[in-house]
């Protein structure tokens, strides 16, 4: 059975609303029986089990848990207060504070969906009260949440590293500069909007206020930085760092801030468990189909076919970027990574692209995918908080998406931007 037939079969099942993980499983089962007979299905439970036991991916539930605990301990409003104290004197202060708070929150959270929920639930109502349009409020919070997956830690990067069998630590380091550039560019666009629409200034700049809010937020900012330092310095692995982040989060919530909101935390843990399960079931099912694809050497054949057409890596990257942008319209980022990355890795290696560099491209690209409807998880969360229409919000968000596209182009074609720090740290 050729790879094309398998692809069409998966597509047909997905179109009739079979979850993608199960569509992969069903097609793999048919392929296994067709080529090796019924007894081949004894492999089904074995692969579905081992596929779900990937040790590096344990970092995913742990980072989700750490973010959930920190968020339940009142960390978000402290970060927002600090960002407001720093940026409140500029026109459009609340919009800038939203981007600033996202820059801070990104060191704690590896998930853009968690970021938009945490920051959006505070700042979107505040912006609406100050007369910002609900579409603008949703757009600015939604687009700045992308920083959570670009700046370490990042759950999509953990997933990519496992799928591409590359270093998650190097990926984390590669995200730092593009994340900061993205944050500053988003602020520039927000400021342009603020001047055009005459959005209000919040408060005069006072060093005393910055100091007070910094002291309040210091634990929340410093502990994650220490943990990231531990990961970058090779003291702990990413998974162990994630476990330490859970301890740090509990310490901050229970000992420092003493305001752990249990009902909220319980709900966040249930959601975290579900997110983990959904992603891991996809990983396991893709391992099932992957064994068959490897048997018929589909990824290698694809690499050979494309490399035969062109060995220009910039062209290959442009094509892959286009593929991921289109997928991002219809697919969640986790699914796109699990489905595409293992298949295109031989191609990436064949044309000589650094897998860490490619990982950052994929992360930024799929961060954009979370902003582009019809399937846009982060945008939809922002819109549901703002009670704004998804398409109306997109008319504003398109400017911010433009900024993120610029970051994507920079990351793709100026490898020094993501890779310089990696080379400094790891040679």
């Amino acid at each position, binding site marked *: 059975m050729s790879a094309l037939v398998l692809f069409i079969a998966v597509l047909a099942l997905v179109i009739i609303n079979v979850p993608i993980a199960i569509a992969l499983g069903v097609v793999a089962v048919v392929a296994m029986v067709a080529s090796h007979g019924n007894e081949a299905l004894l492999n089904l*439970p074995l692969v579905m089990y081992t596929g779900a036991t990937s040790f590096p991916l344990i970092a995913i539930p742990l980072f989700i*848990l750490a973010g959930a605990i920190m968020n339940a301990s009142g960390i978000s409003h402290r970060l927002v207060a600090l960002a407001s104290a720093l940026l409140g004197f500029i026109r459009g202060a609340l919009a800038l504070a939203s981007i600033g708070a996202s820059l801070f929150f990104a060191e704690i959270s590896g998930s853009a969906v968690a970021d938009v929920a945490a920051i959006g639930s505070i700042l979107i109502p505040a912006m609406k009260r100050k007369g910002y349009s609900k579409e603008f409020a949703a757009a600015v919070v939604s687009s700045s949440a992308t920083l959570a997956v670009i700046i370490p830690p990042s759950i999509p990067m953990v997933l990519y590293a496992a799928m591409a069998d590359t270093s998650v630590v190097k990926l984390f380091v590669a995200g730092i500069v593009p994340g900061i550039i993205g944050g500053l560019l988003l602020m520039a666009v927000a400021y342009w909007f603020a001047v055009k629409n005459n959005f209000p200034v919040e408060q005069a700049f006072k060093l005393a206020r910055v100091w007070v809010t910094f002291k309040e937020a210091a634990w929340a900012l410093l502990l994650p930085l220490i943990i990231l330092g531990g990961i970058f310095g090779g003291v702990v692995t990413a998974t162990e760092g994630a476990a330490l982040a859970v301890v740090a989060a509990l310490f901050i919530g229970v000992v420092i801030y003493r305001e752990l909101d249990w009902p909220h935390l319980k709900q966040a843990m*249930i959601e975290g468990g579900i997110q983990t399960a959904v992603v891991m079931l996809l990983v396991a099912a893709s391992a099932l189909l992957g064994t068959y694809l490897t048997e018929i050497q589909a990824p290698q054949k694809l690499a050979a076919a494309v490399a035969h057409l062109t060995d220009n890596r910039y062209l290959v990257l442009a094509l892959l970027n286009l593929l991921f942008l289109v997928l991002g319209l219809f697919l969640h980022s986790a699914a796109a990574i699990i489905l595409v990355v293992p298949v295109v890795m031989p191609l990436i290696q064949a044309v000589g692209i650094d897998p860490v560099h490619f990982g950052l491209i994929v992360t930024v690209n799929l961060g954009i995918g979370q902003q582009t409807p019809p399937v846009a998880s982060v945008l939809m969360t922002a819109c549901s908080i703002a009670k704004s229409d998804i398409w109306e919000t997109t008319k504003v968000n398109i400017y911010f998406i433009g900024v993120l596209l610029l970051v994507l182009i920079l990351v793709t074609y100026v490898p020094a931007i993501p890779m310089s720090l990696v080379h400094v740290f790891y040679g």
Partner: protein
Amino acid sequence: MLARLHRAFERALEWIVIALLLLLALEVILGVVYRYLGNPIVWYDEIASVLLAWVTYYGAALAALKRAHIGVPGFVTTLSARPRLAAVLLGEACILTFFALLAWFGVRVLQMLAGDTLATVDLPVLVTQSVIPIGALLFIAAELLNLPETIHSCRGHRRTAAGVDL
């Protein structure tokens, strides 16, 4: 009656998933602490991986119950009631068949593995691998509990979600 069963099943799965998640976090934390005390736990990686698989399959049933698996529901919502029902029922049949096969062959594999233990600790593989047939049956139960609502939703043009994202 069905609604109460649905709710009870959901609560039970929620608590199992929370417990497994906390156990996983605790286990990795202990592993790190003991390693830095110069007294590494030999079974730390293996048990952590087992716990991840357990979170996966108990969580997958919960996700099915809450319709949180990632999909592309856009197409069926554009269909009129009758073809939509046909498409959705065909999809459900595929899902149920897949998990029935997984449960059936999962039990057969368990029979073959009887007597084996994990590499680093004296824990029967029968226990760790049991999550596959149990998880598959829980998934089937979740789909069946949702089936009346699934069929009912085909009458309207209500959009369903595309699942959870990270």
